[in-house]
C-alpha cells in the first residue's frame, strides 16, 4: 500500500528527543464526565473571536451555537453540554500571555440534551462550498495545536489543484499521545473523515503519515482503510525525528517538495490535516455533532494517573487533572502542548479549549527551570539541527543588536519556533524567545509604519488641498481684478462690482432672515385634522397653567 514504493525524503537537522510517550500511550481513551461548569472562551484559535449569540440566563442545549463566527478567519462556538448560561465575562484562558479573555460560562444541567441536528449529511450530495460551510458550522479547527479554521484550508482556490491530502499523524513532540490513541482506537472515524476531506478538495490521493514509534496506530489505520475500501489511501511510516510533525517538514518527507518560504502547502499541491480534525469532520457529517470535545493527553511526573481523556471543551484543567488522579508531590510546572513547542500555564484554572492536545504536569527533574545563559560561543550546534536550515546563531546575534533588517536578511520569518536550537545550545541561550521577540518587534514596526504612511498620506493630501484652494482663490482674485479693470475701462458706475457684491450680500442676508421665519418643515402641508389636533393640544397645555413647561416654540 504505497509504503514500500514511496520514496521518503529528508529535511535538514532535527533531533532525537527522549520520547516519554510510554507514560500515557498505554491507557485507552476515557471519556470524562461533563463538569458542573463549562468555561468556553470566544477566541480559541488564530483569527477573530466569535460573537456571542446567547444571553445570561438563557438555557442552551448540547451542540447549540452560542457564538457566531466573526469575519473570515473564525468559526462558531457551540455549547459543550446542555445547561444555563450564567455569565459572559472575562476569564483566564490558556494563552501564552496568561491573560483573561471573554468566555461564556455555562452551568450544566446534567441532562446533556442535544440540539436538533443540522450538520449530518451525505457529503457526496453536497457541493464543495456547502461542504466547507458545514465544516465551518461544526466549529472545526486544526486539532494539532495551532487551531487554524479547517474550512479555510479546504479552499485553496482554483489555481492550486490539490494532489495530496496529508493526514499528519506524526505526533513528534515528546509526551503527547492523543493522536496515537485516537488513531489506534478510532481509526475508522479518522479514515472516514479523511475520505470527506479528500472529496472536499478533490485530492488525487490521501497519505496518512505516522512516525515509526506508533506501529499499532499504523496497523489500525491500514485495517480501517481496507475495511471501508477507501481508494487512493496509503499509510506512510516515517522515521521518528523531531520536528517531523511540522507541516512543512512532513510535506518534504512525504513528497520531497518544499513549501515555499511565506507560502502555503497548497502551493505545492498538498493540504495537511490532523487525524483529530479528520475524526471531527466525520463526527459532524455522520453524527451531526459539532466540535465540542477533544482528546487530551494528561501526562508527566506531576500527575498521578497519566493517560488520554476525552474532554468537553470548556472543562477546567483542574477538573481534568483531578480526574487523572490529581497532582503528585512532584508537580512543578504545567504546560499546554508538548515540552518543545507548548506553552507554560501559570494556573490550572484555565479551561480546555479546542487546541488543548496535552496537559503536561512536569516534575522538577523532567523540566527544570532554565539555566543562566552564557555568551554564544558560535559553536554552530544550532545550525546543525535547524529544520529550516537557518543560521540561529547569526539570528541571535542580530536580534541581540536589535538590527531587525539584518534579522530579516537571515530569514527570521522562516523560523518555525520548534526549539531545536535552544535544546542543543551549550550556552543555554533562550534562542526561541529572542526570535519571538524580534518577530513581534517587526510586526509592531510594520504596524507603526502603516499608521505613519496613512498619516503622511493624509498630511500630504491636506497640503495639496490647501495649495489647491490657495491657487483657486488666487485665480478668482485675478479674474475679479481683470473684470474690475475692464469695468473701470467702461467707466460705468452702476456696474461697479464692489457695489454689486455688497448688493448681492444684502440680498442673501435678507433671504436668510426670511428663511428663519419659515415654520418647521414637518408642520408644512398639514391636513385639517392634524392642524386641529395641534391647536387643541396647545389649548390644553395653556389651560394646565404655568407649572407645566411650555414648548420652546411657544415662548
Amino acid at each position, binding site marked *: 500500500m504505497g509504503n514500500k514504493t514511496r520514496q521518503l525524503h529528508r529535511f535538514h537537522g532535527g533531533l532525537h528527543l527522549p520520547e516519554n510517550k510510554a507514560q500515557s500511550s498505554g491507557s485507552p481513551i476515557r471519556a470524562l464526565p461533563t463538569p458542573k461548569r463549562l468555561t468556553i472562551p470566544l477566541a480559541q484559535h488564530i483569527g477573530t473571536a466569535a460573537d456571542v449569540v446567547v444571553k445570561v440566563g438563557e438555557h442552551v442545549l448540547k451542540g447549540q451555537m452560542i457564538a457566531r463566527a466573526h469575519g473570515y478567519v473564525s468559526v462558531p462556538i457551540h455549547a459543550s453540554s446542555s445547561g444555563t448560561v450564567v455569565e459572559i465575562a472575562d476569564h483566564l484562558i490558556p494563552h501564552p500571555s496568561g491573560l483573561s479573555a471573554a468566555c461564556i460560562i455555562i452551568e450544566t444541567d446534567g441532562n446533556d440534551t442535544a440540539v436538533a441536528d443540522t450538520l449530518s449529511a451525505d457529503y457526496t450530495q453536497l457541493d464543495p462550498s456547502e461542504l466547507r460551510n458545514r465544516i465551518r458550522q461544526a466549529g472545526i479547527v486544526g486539532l494539532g495545536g495551532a487551531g487554524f479554521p479547517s474550512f479555510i484550508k479546504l479552499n485553496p482556490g482554483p489555481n492550486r489543484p490539490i494532489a495530496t491530502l496529508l493526514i499528519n499523524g506524526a505526533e513528534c513532540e515528546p509526551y503527547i499521545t492523543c493522536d496515537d490513541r485516537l488513531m489506534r482506537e478510532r481509526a475508522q472515524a479518522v479514515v472516514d473523515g479523511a475520505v470527506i476531506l479528500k472529496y472536499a478538495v478533490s485530492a488525487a490521493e490521501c497519505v496518512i503519515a505516522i512516525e515509526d514509534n506508533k506501529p499499532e496506530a499504523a496497523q489500525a489505520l491500514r485495517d480501517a482503510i481496507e475495511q471501508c475500501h477507501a481508494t487512493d489511501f496509503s499509510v506512510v511510516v516515517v522515521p521518528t525525528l523531531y520536528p517531523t510533525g511540522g507541516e512543512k517538514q512532513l510535506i518534504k518527507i512525504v513528497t520531497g517538495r518544499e513549501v515555499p*518560504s511565506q507560502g502555503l502547502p497548497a502551493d505545492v499541491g498538498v493540504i495537511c490535516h490532523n487525524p483529530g480534525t479528520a475524526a471531527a469532520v466525520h463526527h459532524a457529517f455522520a453524527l451531526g455533532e459539532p466540535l465540542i470535545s477533544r482528546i487530551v493527553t494528561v501526562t508527566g511526573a506531576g500527575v498521578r494517573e497519566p493517560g488520554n481523556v476525552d474532554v468537553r471543551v470548556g472543562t477546567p484543567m483542574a477538573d481534568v487533572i483531578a480526574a487523572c488522579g490529581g497532582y503528585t508531590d512532584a508537580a512543578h510546572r504545567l504546560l499546554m502542548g508538548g515540552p518543545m513547542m507548548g506553552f507554560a500555564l501559570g494556573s490550572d484554572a484555565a479551561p480546555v479549549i479546542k487546541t488543548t492536545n496535552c496537559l503536561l504536569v512536569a516534575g522538577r527533574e523532567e523540566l527544570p527551570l532554565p539555566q543562566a545563559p552564557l555568551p554564544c560561543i558560535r559553536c554552530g550546534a544550532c545550525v546543525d539541527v535547524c529544520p529550516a536550515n537557518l*543560521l540561529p546563531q547569526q539570528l541571535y546575534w542580530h536580534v541581540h543588536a536589535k538590527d531587525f533588517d539584518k534579522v530579516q536578511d537571515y530569514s527570521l520569518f*522562516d523560523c518555525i*519556533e520548534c526549539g531545536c536550537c535552544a535544546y542543543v545550545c*551549550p550556552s543555554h541561550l533562550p534562542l526561541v524567545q529572542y526570535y519571538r521577540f524580534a518577530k513581534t518587534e517587526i510586526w509592531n514596526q510594520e504596524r507603526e509604519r502603516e499608521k505613519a504612511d496613512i498619516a503622511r498620506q493624509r498630511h500630504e493630501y491636506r497640503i495639496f488641498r490647501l495649495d489647491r484652494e490657495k491657487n483657486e482663490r488666487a485665480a478668482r482674485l485675478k479674474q475679479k481684478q481683470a473684470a474690475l479693470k475692464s469695468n473701470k475701462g467702461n467707466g460705468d458706475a452702476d456696474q461697479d462690482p464692489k457695489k454689486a457684491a455688497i448688493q448681492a450680500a444684502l440680498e442673501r442676508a435678507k433671504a436668510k432672515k426670511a428663511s428663519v421665519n419659515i415654520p418647521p418643515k414637518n408642520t408644512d402641508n398639514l391636513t385639517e385634522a392634524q392642524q386641529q389636533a395641534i391647536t387643541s393640544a396647545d389649548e390644553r397645555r395653556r389651560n394646565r397653567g404655568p407649572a407645566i413647561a411650555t414648548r420652546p416654540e411657544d415662548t
Partner: protein
Amino acid sequence: MQFPVFSSPHLPAQSNVARVMGEVLLALLPGILCAAWFFGWGVLVNIIIAATTCVAAEAVVLAMRGRAVRATLGDRSALLTGVLLALCLPPLAPWWIPVIGSLFAIVIAKQLYGGLGYNPFNPAMIGYVVLLISYPRELTLWNPPTGIEAQHLNLSQTLALIFTNSLPAETTIDALTMPTPLDATKTALGLGQTLNEIKASPLFGHYGGVGWEWLNLSYLIGGLYLLMRRIISWHIPAGMLGALFLVALVFYASDTDAFPSPLFHLFSGAAMLGAFFIATDPVSASTTPRGRLLYGAGIGLFAYVIRTWGGYPDGVAFGVLLMNMAAPTLDYYTKPRVFGQPK
C-alpha cells in the same frame, strides 16, 4: 494550583560550555602524553605555567570588569587556551615565555574584546604569534625528541633551565636544542640541498620528523574523538587538511626534490593540533557549513605558503589569524539556502 511560567522550549538544554571545553581538554590528553614522552618535562611545565597564568589573568580581569569570577572560570575556556598555547611552545623556553603569551592571549586578545564569545581572534594563537615575533630565539628552544642520540634533561635540570636559566655543567644551550623537522627542511632547502639528502638526517622518521609524526598522530586520534562526540564538525579539519594535502601534492608532484611530500606536511609541526583543536575554536571561526570548509581550506593554504616560501618554519598560527579576519565575510557569503527559498 499555581506554576512558574517560562518560554518554550521547556526541555532542558543537553550540553553546556564547560562540558564542551572539558571534552576538548580530554581529547588533548593523548597529544599531551605523547608530547611529554618525546619532549620531556618541559611540555608539562609549560602547560602548568600557561594554564595557571591564563586562569589567574582571566580571574583578575573578570574581577576588574565586575563579572562573576567563579562562574565564568567554570566554563574552562581560559584553561583550554593556556593548554593550547603551551602545546605550541618549545619545551625549553624560559618560564616568562608562557607567562607573557598567556597574559597577551587572555587579557588583550580575549577579555579586552569582551571575554568568551566576543574575541575576533583565536586567543592562544595571538599569544603564540606575539611570542614568535617578539622572541624568535626563545621560540626555537626545541630539545631533540626521545629517540635521537643527544643529551636529554631530567626533571630538575629542566626546571633549573626554565626557571633560573642555569645549564647542567659542561653543556651549552646549543647542544641541548635542535631545529624542528620543518625548520631543518626549510634551512636545508635554502642551502640548496635536495630532500633526499635532508631525509638522511637523523631528525626524520617514517614520513615526518622523529617524534613529530607520533605527536601529530595522537592529535589526530584526539580529533577523531571530538568528531565522534560531535564536539566539532568535520568541515574545518577536512578543509584544512584537505587543502594542505592537495597543495602539497601538486608541488610535490612537480618536483619531489624541492617540495616535501603531502604526508610530511600533514604530520609535521602544528598540522593536526591546528586542524582539530585550534582552527576549530568556534568563537573566532566561520560558522556556516560551507564557510567552515573554506575557512579550513584557507588555513591549510596559508600554512603551506608560509612553510614553503615564508619567513617562519610553520604557518598554522598565521593561517588561523588570517582566516579569523575572513570569518565574518565567509559567513556572510556562505549562508545556506533556507527551507522553502528558491534553489
